[in-house]
């Protein structure tokens, strides 16, 4: 197979990982909690879209269904933060890790109850069509994934630079106490960050389900997104995306060129390598920790 073809498919996959990783990084930057349920939020959002859009569901127009699912997921994430995560404010990081893992399990269980455990796929208007450039076949779904990711990342960038809420989030991520002193509603803001990350998770889920199938266990994809986030640097938004792209590209290449089994291990091997060489990731500024 053409390496370039692998590269394109990998880039599209990588965008999904990158978006998921972006969700982790958003939450980590603002609240310093790591959301281990991000993958399950992605799965949940994708299933919601699926039941709204598919023909045997509510059969809504694609755009409308996606928007409703995004809104619903934003509200759900907001409520999750408000009811569970906020109670652990100031507790050791370990508790939040365990709590979000447990939340992920619950989400997976609920999804299994509602939608069953069989893999399902999302019916999209752009499925099955492709552009051909010479020997390279570019699926519409791949193009949509890449374009949407770029738009979303650009949008987030503008959001952080130009809006009041975005600026306040930056302040929160730099120093929570100081942000509180200058009158930023830190608690509400961290709920909003969760909502934003729920939105990116849903979009990632929609893109993922459009490219393949989804089932309640798809949430485990989040682990790969973790690898992506770590490779890029956990505190860096562009890093997360680039880490996702690296993971996405390496996977099909390893599958094609390396013996069986190595492709599953490759992302984690790169992650461990990055952790050893540069623990804070490729794209983050390292300084001393304060006592």
């Amino acid at each position: 197979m053409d390496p370039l073809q692998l590269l394109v498919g990998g880039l599209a996959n990588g965008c999904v990982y990158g978006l998921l990783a972006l969700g982790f990084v958003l939450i980590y930057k603002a609240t310093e909690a790591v959301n281990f349920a991000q993958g399950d939020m992605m799965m949940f959002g994708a299933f919601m879209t699926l039941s709204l859009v598919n023909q045997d569901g509510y059969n809504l127009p694609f755009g409308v269904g996606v928007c409703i699912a995004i809104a619903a997921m934003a509200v759900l994430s907001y409520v999750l933060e408000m009811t569970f995560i906020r109670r652990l404010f100031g507790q050791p990081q370990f508790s939040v890790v365990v709590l979000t893992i447990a939340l992920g399990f619950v989400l997976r269980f609920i999804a299994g109850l509602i939608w069953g455990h069989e893999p399902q796929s999302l019916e999209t208007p752009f499925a099955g069509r492709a552009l051909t450039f010479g020997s390279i076949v570019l699926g519409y779904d791949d193009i949509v994934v890449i374009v949407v990711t770029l738009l979303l990342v650009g949008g987030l960038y503008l959001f952080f630079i130009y809006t009041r809420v975005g600026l306040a989030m930056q302040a929160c991520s730099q120093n929570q106490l100081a942000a509180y002193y200058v009158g930023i509603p830190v608690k509400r803001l961290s709920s909003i960050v969760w909502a934003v990350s729920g939105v990116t998770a849903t979009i990632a889920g929609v893109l993922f389900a459009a490219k393949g199938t989804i089932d309640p266990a798809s949430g485990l994809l989040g682990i790969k997104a973790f690898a992506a986030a770590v490779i890029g640097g956990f505190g860096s938004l562009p890093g997360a995306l680039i880490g996702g792209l690296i993971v996405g590209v390496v996977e099909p290449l390893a599958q094609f060129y390396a013996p069986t089994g190595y492709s599953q291990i490759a992302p984690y091997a790169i992650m461990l390598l990055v952790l050893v060489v540069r623990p804070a990731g490729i794209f983050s500024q390292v300084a001393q920790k304060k006592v």
Partner: protein
Amino acid sequence: MRYHFRTSYAQEIRPYQDWRQLLWYVLLLVVAAVAPFLLDEYLLGELTHILIWALAGLGLMLLAGHCGMVSLGHGAFLACGAYMQYNLVNMSVPFILAIPLSGLFAGITGALFAVPALRLTGIYLAIATLALGAIAEDLIIMLEPWTGGVEGLYLETGSVYAIEFDRYAQQIASASPGHNFYWLCLLVVTCVTLGYINLLRSATGRAFSAIRDSEISAAAMGIHIAGYKTLGFGLSCFVTGVAGALLAHFVGAFNYEAFNLLISIQLLLLITIGGIGTIHGAFIGALLLGIMPLVIVAVREFIAQLLGSGNMTIPGIDQAVLALLLITFIIFEPSGVHGRFVKVKTWLQLFPLARRQLFRRSRSYLKTDRLR
């Protein structure tokens, strides 16, 4: 109201508080030792399973509770012990000797993994170990010559001097072998627990706690951080590896699915629900985790009878119940069942004088772990 009046320094560091406490533990040990004569075969099997889980929990507790390093991939070290046990027994190493050797192998593997992992703190370590847990399955499949790959392998009954350690009690006239395996597990767990208690009151154990509480101040006190962290990781993996070796004999036949990521997560749930940072916690957590499926089955049957409907199985209900329990504990009682027990006990001991604020959780702002 009871008050411990201390008359010597030895009282401060001995492993038990007073003779009453010692009496309770001895009593517990005696009850555990005669349990095979009181329980039927099925329950004895469950009890053995609980003991093995408690052992694995002790391993993770040492790491997460006392060294302050969270591992989300301890299932990998469990697998390490289990597969090493198989290979050692196949190389005709005596069964009894193979158990600590497999533990040692897991420990050394863990220590080697810890060397790069040492540079990681907090969340990065959690993610690195999570990745290890995630690739454990793939690694097991890839290392087929030693692990039997996808098909898995079958471990035969171990025996020493014609004493068979089979968990399935085929009613042989003399002594039923099921008991032997249970007693073996009990012996190992008791030894490890005693070792653990003694470790905690040694300089090494205090160094672990110091590192957990503040790495920087521990370093300032002259504690060699990297060395102790590696040691902690290795010891934790050793204990987990021993549990893995016992588990291999317990289940007999196993493949890569026995050591997936869920096992690692369950271990984490075990120590959190039991009470993190306490030895009791590992046992209480293992007990809860062992009883949970039985309770769920009982409740399900009860509801089915009530509704008059037939079979109502919901896939994944076990995990969901565990997760809900975990959420409840993390939010309302982060110190776990053992923590709650201590609170109730203290309240009773102090009876008229207990104050509500005694165990109040201190509120604090986020202490950043981030490098900046």
